[in-house]
């Protein structure tokens, strides 16, 4: 392999950026195209919606309507761009953190929160939405994504798979195996790392000594890039290129987005134990939504009315989420036995009867 080929796999030395923190445009890097104006407007709308949804879900944990919620606050540019870079026939493999992405994909928000409210299933129909169930065991979904990409390729579908994964998740063996399989099979899959700087309490420096996570790609022959994850324009541009590359037979693509988890790991976590307010405030100044808003307003793509419209739509959406979650989900204990196998085993049938006897026993 020539030096040239190696260089073609390595990420840019600095994260790709289209918009500075203050919302002004910076020189676009070579090789990446700015997204169309309409796409940026759509992204803005979805980020406003996503953030409002996220705030609503967090509020609902306090009222006990959700068992737990891992917030996306600060990561909306990543999650919205991830979804916008995909077509309807492409597949998304999200983690537990990616609820905003799912909402941006158009899934019913109450369905998205099904598992987190204490039910056992993922709510939505994965095949219909082309969104895998949100995955909790870290990095395991990255291998599934490669499998799905291989399935699609074998079926002659022109579709791409995008797997989301966190910075912490990149340390798991499965992440490595996924990149390696995808590299060897040249699978049409994009690995999208949201490096939000923490895995629960563990900071990035304890997670990796790599110059950047994007430098992992070259070791698998996988083209890689790093991008400012709070710059919607940049993330969308890079992911669009990654998806194109994969779709056109170029093989897998690894993208690392540098972002920040503004909230604690979940509502149950206490982030003050391991990071200081100063750091959080510094990142607040890099807020992806404010940045996009400024950028769009300065470029005349958004006005006050547009902002209001997006916010109103988001309020309405939040109300739907609230109402939906205030209704108790119906859970049928007998269903516990229905989906373990296609048909319950004789053992499960017996156990179902045992439960029935318990549940119907006269309360003397």
């Amino acid at each position, binding site marked *: 392999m020539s030096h040239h080929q190696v260089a073609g796999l390595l990420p840019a030395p600095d994260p790709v950026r289209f918009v500075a923190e203050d919302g002004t445009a910076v020189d676009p890097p070579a090789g990446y195209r700015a997204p169309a104006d309409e796409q940026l407007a759509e992204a803005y709308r979805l980020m406003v919606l996503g953030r409002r949804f996220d705030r609503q879900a967090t509020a609902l944990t306090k009222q006990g309507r959700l068992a737990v919620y891992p917030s996306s606050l600060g990561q909306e540019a990543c999650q919205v761009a991830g979804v916008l870079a995909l077509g309807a026939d492409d597949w998304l493999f999200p983690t537990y953190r990616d609820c905003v992405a799912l909402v941006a994909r158009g899934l019913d928000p109450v369905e998205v929160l099904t598992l987190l409210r204490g039910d056992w299933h993922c709510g939505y129909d994965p095949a219909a939405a082309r969104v895998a169930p949100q995955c909790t065991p870290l990095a395991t979904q990255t291998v599934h994504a490669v499998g799905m990409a291989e399935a*699609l390729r074998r079926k002659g579908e022109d579709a791409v798979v995008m797997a989301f994964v966190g910075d912490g998740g990149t340390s798991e063996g499965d992440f490595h195996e996924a990149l390696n399989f995808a590299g060897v099979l040249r699978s049409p899959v994009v690995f999208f790392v949201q490096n939000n700087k923490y895995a629960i309490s563990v900071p990035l420096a304890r997670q990796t000594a790599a110059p950047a996570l994007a430098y992992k790609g070259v070791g698998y022959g996988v083209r890689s890039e790093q991008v400012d994850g709070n710059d919607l324009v940049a993330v969308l541009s890079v992911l669009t290129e990654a998806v194109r590359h994969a779709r056109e037979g170029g093989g897998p693509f690894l993208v690392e987005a540098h972002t920040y988890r503004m909230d604690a790991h979940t509502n149950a976590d206490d982030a003050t134990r391991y990071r200081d307010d100063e750091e959080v405030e510094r990142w607040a100044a890099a807020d992806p939504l404010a940045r996009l808003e400024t950028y769009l307003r300065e470029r005349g793509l958004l006005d006050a009315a547009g902002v209001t419209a997006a916010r109103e739509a988001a309020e309405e959406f939040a109300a739907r989420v609230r109402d939906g979650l205030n209704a108790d989900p119906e859970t049928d204990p007998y269903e516990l036995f229905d989906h373990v196998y*296609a048909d319950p085993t004789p053992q499960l049938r017996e156990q179902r009867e045992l439960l029935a006897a318990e549940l119907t026993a006269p309360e003397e």
Partner: protein
Amino acid sequence: MTAMSMAQALNAALRDALRADERVLVFGEDVGPLGGVFRVTDGLTKEFGEERCFDTPLAESGIVGLAVGMAMGGFRPVVEMQFDAFAYPAFEQIASHVAKTRNRTRGRVTLPMVIRVPFAGGIGGVEHHCDSSEAYYAHTPGLKVVTPATVEDAYWLLRDAIADPDPVIFMEPKRLYWSKEAFSPSGRRRAPGFGQAVVRREGRDATLVAYGPGVPVALQAAEAAAADGVSLEVVDLRTIVPFDDETVTSSVRKTGRCVVIQEAQGFAGVGAEIAARVQERCFHSLAAPVLRVTGFDIPYPPPKLEHAHLPDADRVLDAVDRLQFDDRPDVVHLSREAS
């Protein structure tokens, strides 16, 4: 009908499944041109091409995870773990995804896939090549666990496993790979389906319950006992999950005595489950406790010592001898040389 080894029957089952259903795929380590270290996938790449039978990088979690994704995408992957202990890197994928996906999607995402695991010992293998790992899988709800003891079952149970809507852990007793039987895959199917045990030999005095590599041992013990006038019935479970309580309990109710045979280390193994179930269900028919004949609770021993570890007909007959036949003067006690 010519004689066929179990490895050949498995090969034929894969071949026929690949022919019958284009969604079937075979992959794993060395399953391509080499045909697998036990030659179970011999010739498949040649006949079906690299798209349908292929070598993967060396990573078991990746192999199983890839199969999960492909099954989600509509395929029916049949993957090979090269040896029992080398499936352990895939344990998270198996326990947390393969087993649970149907349930946690309320039946919307199903994973019709087969994980083939050559298991157990008796072949003089070095460490990590002879583990009996069936209990790990049998204890994991959502998995079906199957193990053939005959050439015919090897063929048909594997066909069943591939056709099954649920993920199946298909445990292949290594030491039976080369055992031959007159069998033709194209002949009329006699083997019963998934979930049914069979009585391999009828008897009156006690029931031997076995599966996989334990079945020939049970049959050998029964043969030896017969020479001494003791009539042992042999039940072959075939599928561990689902479990065929019906066949097992009706045999034990008839004979009143039961010995469970399992090659794996005994503690908390499948044999414990069988013994527990049998006494729960047949307590009043039992003239003696249900006894277990198992491997010891030790890591699988080296070639030079595996004979000391493996349950053999002698150990089974010793157990039969302890089945308290004192009240049955018609049953002679079995002496060790009987086998």
